[in-house]
């Protein structure tokens, strides 16, 4: 028969399918003042740190930043660099390493609009979006001072409700994806799938690209299906100094260095935070990896996980 394709359906489909792989700059294009950006991960794990640095290199400012319920390094860095106008957050810290110095300072100096959140108000707000609702009940927020101070929770006649949150863009980091945007978290997916579902645009940096056949061999490992994803950016060690679950540990030494720089008083022997930005942010990813210790350091972080 004339019309019979010579290859299997799969091969044809794969051949003709649009790849979502792109450069970091293309993926992040358009993110700027007033963008509501959701940043994935949790604390200093699985965070799209390289993407955040790229945004800062591009001079981003005026962001409305929605952090995954517990956030850390990248939130502090964005705030410290002056890129954030409004922060929707439940938690910013470095856990046992300490508080988030730039977040704390900006809050205490009232340089930042902070919308107090909680896992329930963030998830409730995202779920409202997913379910086509203007807001979502979060009865368990009763009797907190968030009710008096946060616009992310309203008291209705039937109790507290979280208004819908629809991020303009979610920027996530995962370990693996194929070029069609099927994403695999090798540890916690946590809030990332719901960010992906609720956001208008989804950018995922991954430590490595895998074949579509790898995805299809274990479909239960796909944590975010391709149809939710707009851009896949392969970026080995793209989470550093944060960890990438299952692949490499967070770089505690670098985080401590960051904390010292970010916590130093202004003008203390030259601005330590400005120096941090110069040394570790305003440079491309390859140079960055070199500067934080190169292969030797990265191998050591891999080892800690193995």
């Amino acid at each position, binding site marked *: 028969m004339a019309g*019979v394709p010579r290859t299997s359906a*799969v091969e044809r*489909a794969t051949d003709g399918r649009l790849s979502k792989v792109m450069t970091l700059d293309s993926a992040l294009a358009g993110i700027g003042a007033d963008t509501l950006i959701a940043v994935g991960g949790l604390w200093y794990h699985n965070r799209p740190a390289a993407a955040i640095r790229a945004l800062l290199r591009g001079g981003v400012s005026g962001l409305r930043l929605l952090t995954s319920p517990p956030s850390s390094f990248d939130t502090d860095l964005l705030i410290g660099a002056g890129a954030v106008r409004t922060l929707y957050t439940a938690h910013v810290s470095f856990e046992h390493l300490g508080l988030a110095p730039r977040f704390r300072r900006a809050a205490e100096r009232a340089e930042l609009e902070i919308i107090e959140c909680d896992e329930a108000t963030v998830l409730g707000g995202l779920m409202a979006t997913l*379910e086509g609702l203007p807001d979502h009940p979060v009865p368990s927020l009763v009797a907190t001072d968030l009710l008096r101070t946060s616009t992310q929770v309203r008291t209705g006649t039937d109790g507290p409700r979280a208004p819908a949150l629809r991020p303009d863009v979610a920027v996530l980091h995962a370990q693996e994806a194929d070029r069609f945007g099927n994403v695999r978290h090798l540890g916690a997916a946590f809030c990332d799938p719901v960010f992906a579902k*609720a956001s208008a645009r989804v950018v995922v940096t991954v430590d490595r690209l895998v074949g579509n056949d790898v995805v299809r061999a274990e*479909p239960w490992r*796909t944590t975010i299906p391709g149809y939710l994803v707009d851009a896949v950016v392969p970026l080995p060690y793209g989470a550093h100094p944060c960890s990438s679950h299952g692949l490499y540990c967070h770089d505690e030494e670098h985080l401590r260095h960051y904390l010292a720089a970010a916590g130093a008083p202004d003008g203390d022997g030259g601005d330590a935070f400005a120096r941090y930005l110069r040394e570790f942010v305003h440079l491309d990813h390859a140079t960055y990896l070199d500067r934080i210790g190169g292969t030797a350091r990265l191998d050591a972080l891999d080892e800690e996980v193995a």
Partner: protein
Amino acid sequence: MSYSDRELMAVLLARQLRNGEIGMMGASSEIPVAAALLAQCLHAPDLTVIMPSGAVNPRPGRLYRSSSDGRWFTGCEAIGTAYDLFELSENGRLDFMCYGGVQLDRFGNINLTRTGPFGEPPRFRGPGLANISMAVTAKRTLLFSTAHSPRTFVERVDYVTAPGHLSGGTQRRRAGIATAGPQVCITPLAVFGFPEPEHAMTVSSLNPGIEPGRVLDATGFALPPPPWPATEPPTGEELGALRAVVDRTGVLRS
């Protein structure tokens, strides 16, 4: 080249599916599933096919008759739960949803629940419909029926299981539904549309070898009279791909 009614319908439905769309299949959905897989391998490689069981972009060796057969999962790209599908729908991400019906009416309303008057036991009890909400949330609805008869194609459904254009005109929008609703209905006899402004079923094209009178007789409501354009017959490429890639075991031919 000869083909079965169901092969024809799969080909005609495939032509309605566009590259890059996200579509959900329903129950007893060999025709829509075949159509979607066919579209993927012809003009819509980036079409996302979501099975009612949650399998995303399956890569079956053949056409399994049960839409939730476990074999659809082997080699698919992701597995969604019922909650994922619920969200996908409510969030307005679905581009299309395919529905059949025990009754379908002029305005594309769907009855899969029951016939007979309200308040009495049903004259006929249908299977019901699990994905009603997608008739409201999917950007457009695609109807199909292998049973083109006056019993199925009725003036007004006895029970609105899922809304089409309600009583036509702007009624759907006035009910607060923002999506486009039924855009096409495919049967073995013809392809129907729901043109503005009335949104009532009209014949878009008459299928190959069918007499107009047969369509008029088989339809339980008035249609704008012939002549009607002719449906472009399945091409060799369409049938070839359908048989060699999608439906290797000839489920749609039997």
